[in-house]
């Protein structure tokens, strides 16, 4: 390749108290390419991006943009140089309209005031380019997360960027939306833009990326053309050890857990107006029940009903044979039900509290305010789970917000395992988590299931649902349309079921 790289990062080092986040990391971007930045959680991808976008100042190393050394001191400065990023967590203003969000900070002006007409017109056009047709004058919060993510991307596309960074942009998108995004990216590529794409989805990496840079433990491991690096090689490079493909592709059918003959939780005609249509669902101890369905099919709604977050206005729930009312999470917890929510940041972690406090929170809540766990017992529980689940941290007293996504998820899992639940609802437990941590979490889930836990597993990755579930309840348009036993299920079956109901 004789083309000069548009951006070169070399010898980048950055350490935080107690952690060497980046050691001699490097990244090269050429115009008109999509470059996948791969690595496990905590490999330093996010830190590298933060250095590039001026959020963090590197301790050492140089960044060259078009041959010129640059050192962006803040996001604004980086943006002016043509480096724009879209983050995994949506950083937009939910109370502003979609159009305002797209143009915030650079509103086109008229003689007097802001040119609202142009804004709305252009915003609609930008979204239409991504094949999204919505009312741009409504507040952002009135749209689902996936649309919000697309708005964030549309916003990034409107800035005059040479380098566009997409950090886990697809974690809340369904397949159609991903395809639309990819179309847009291909257009941008043609225009000569360099795109950094961070994802944990291997399929997507191979669908869009031209080259791949792998980081591990903050170090640069290698840069490869996507066409010559096999999936297995990629995984092995990322993990740094051999992962058996068989175990990666293993189906849960081999699992011979002793399944209870009576359901632990049994819902009959459970539904809520504006939420789920009435459905029946039985959850057995020692069995993983998957919820299959597309985005918006009612997976999370089902979980929220079973955990007492949303109130059901029809139907009954029996727990362990007794009819109960679940009007609050507190009650659900009392019946031994646990719930890891999809939105880790806003509904899961208590960011400023320590890992220890986060882990014992649910246990303490169930014990009640006056049966306080002594600090020593808290530390013992925290240490036990940090060890058992392999949470990577220097110290249980560190704020949980400082952990990487996968480790936060493990800590949340620990929070619930500490309460010794009978049923565990996992809503997108592996979102935004690298492949090795994903496998670890799935292993943990299966191990807990074998110990007699009933598990309701929700994921937007159908292959993942198929891999762990003994039984899959298929949802479409907030309706349960059927169930498939694990050994009969493959993607074709499930999708045919979803599509078939339409015909």
């Amino acid at each position, binding site marked *: 390749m004789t083309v000069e790289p548009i951006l070169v990062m070399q010898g980048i080092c950055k350490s935080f108290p107690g952690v060497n986040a980046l050691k001699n990391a490097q990244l090269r971007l050429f115009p008109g390419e999509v470059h996948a930045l791969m690595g496990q959680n905590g490999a330093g991808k996010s830190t590298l991006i933060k250095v590039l976008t001026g959020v963090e100042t590197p301790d050492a190393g140089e960044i060259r943009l078009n041959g010129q050394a640059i050192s962006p001191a803040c996001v604004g400065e980086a943006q002016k140089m043509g480096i724009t990023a879209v983050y995994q967590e949506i950083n937009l203003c939910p109370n502003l309209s979609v159009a305002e969000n797209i143009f915030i900070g650079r509103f086109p002006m008229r003689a007097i005031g802001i040119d609202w007409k142009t804004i709305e017109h252009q915003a609609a056009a930008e979204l239409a380019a991504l094949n999204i047709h919505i009312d741009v004058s409504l507040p952002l919060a009135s749209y689902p997360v996936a649309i919000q993510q697309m708005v964030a991307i549309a916003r990034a596309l409107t800035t005059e960027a040479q380098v566009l960074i997409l950090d886990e942009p697809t974690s809340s998108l369904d397949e159609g939306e991903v395809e639309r995004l990819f179309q847009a990216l291909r257009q941008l590529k043609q225009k000569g833009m360099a795109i950094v794409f961070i994802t944990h989805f291997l399929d997507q990496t191979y669908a869009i990326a031209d080259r791949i840079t792998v980081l591990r433990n903050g170090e640069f491991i290698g840069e490869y053309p996507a066409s010559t690096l096999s999936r297995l090689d990629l995984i092995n490079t990322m993990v740094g050890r051999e992962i058996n493909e068989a175990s990666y592709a293993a189906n849960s059918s081999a699992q011979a857990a002793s399944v209870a003959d009576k359901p632990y939780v049994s819902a009959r005609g459970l539904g809520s107006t504006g939420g789920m249509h009435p459905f029946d669902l039985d959850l057995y101890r020692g069995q993983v029940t998957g919820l299959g369905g597309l985005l918006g099919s009612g997976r999370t709604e089902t979980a929220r009903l079973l*955990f007492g977050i949303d109130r059901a206005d029809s139907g009954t729930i029996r727990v362990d044979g007794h009819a109960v009312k679940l009007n609050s999470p507190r009650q659900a*917890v009392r019946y031994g039900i646990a719930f890891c*929510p999809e939105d880790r940041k806003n509904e899961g972690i*208590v*960011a400023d*509290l320590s890992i220890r406090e986060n882990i014992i929170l*649910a246990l303490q809540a169930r014990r009640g305010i006056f049966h*306080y766990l002594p600090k020593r017992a808290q530390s013992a529980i925290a240490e036990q789970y940090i060890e058992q689940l392999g949470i990577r941290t220097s110290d249980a007293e560190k704020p949980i917000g400082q952990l990487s996504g996968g480790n936060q998820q493990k800590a949340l899992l620990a929070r619930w395992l500490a309460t010794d639940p009978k049923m565990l609802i996992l809503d997108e437990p592996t979102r935004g988590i690298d492949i090795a941590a994903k496998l670890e979490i799935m292993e943990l889930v299966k191990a807990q299931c074998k110990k007699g836990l009933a598990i309701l597993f929700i994921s937007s990755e159908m292959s993942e649902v198929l891999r762990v579930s003994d039984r899959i309840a298929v949802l479409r348009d907030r309706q349960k349309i059927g169930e498939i036993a694990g050994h009969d299920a493959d993607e074709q079956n499930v999708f045919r079921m979803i599509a078939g109901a339409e015909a």
Partner: protein
Amino acid sequence: MKRLPTTWRDLARHPLFWPGVTLVLLCLVNVYFNRSFFAIEIKSGHLYGSVIDILNRAAPLMLVAMGMTLVIATRGIDISVGATVAISGAVVASLIGGSLIIQNGVQTYVSNVPMPLAIIAALAVALLCGLWNGLLVAGAGMQPIIATLILMVAGRGIAQLITEGQIVTVYYEPFFIIGNGFLLGIPVSLYIVALVLAIMLLLIHRTALGLFIESVGINPVAARFSGISARALVFWVYAFCALTAGIAALIITSNVKSADGNNAGLLLELDAILAVTLGGTSLAGGRFSIMGSLLGSLIIQTLTYAIYSLGVPPEINMVVKALVVFGVCLIQSEALRAMLGKHLFRTGEAA
């Protein structure tokens, strides 16, 4: 640039470091203008001195600031504490009232209703105020500042209704012990503060109250999803805050021997919020420090004292106070410190 020793830097990171430094500085200013600032003498078995005076006068503020800390930690605010003080003060003063009766040459003090009963009634009314706030915030989901604004506006009117528009004077001498009395040489009000502090520290460190309040303050949804009944917690926190205002009302009423519905506890809510902020608890909720709020209260009272001893004309003393508070808040601002630190570091590097 020389690096500060680690222990020193750790100390500077302690949440109570900056409030402590501020208080020490204010005390030094006081010593400069009044050499006998720290002098404590014993007069007729009681401790007397500027420091004792400051502590004694800060007692009502310390009490309210402690209650306010919990409210603020849950992301709330209670601007009705001043009005609650007025109501409670009116209740206790009207119920006790009292007169001096001389019978056969022996003076006896008689109250309208027994004093313990009057005190309980005043505290109960304060609690009721808090339950009302709690109901609006936790039950009806109103924004805390609006919910407590209602009582703030209505409260002084209610106090006037209780006292029938008069300033009620208390003549019953035993009641004065609360605000003016001494026990073993130390003002009684400080025992009350110490008792409330002890109860709070016990609740925060020996029960899960502290953990739950911080969780709810940092991430209410996650707290609820973990099985904490966030609403009940918030409800009782407002009730408790009003109760501390009720206790403060007893001290204030006893101290001035009367209840003035218009002026009792006037602007106390703002001083309390300021004390909490000076103590290092963020108005955004979450991590909180009761000891910090006590330091904050003492900062405010010491500042007031300093302004008087400086001989600042009374008409502009609020301006001076505001300037000092502004300065203190600037020092405590993370962002400013980071900016200054960066600047110093850069010049140090260049030199």
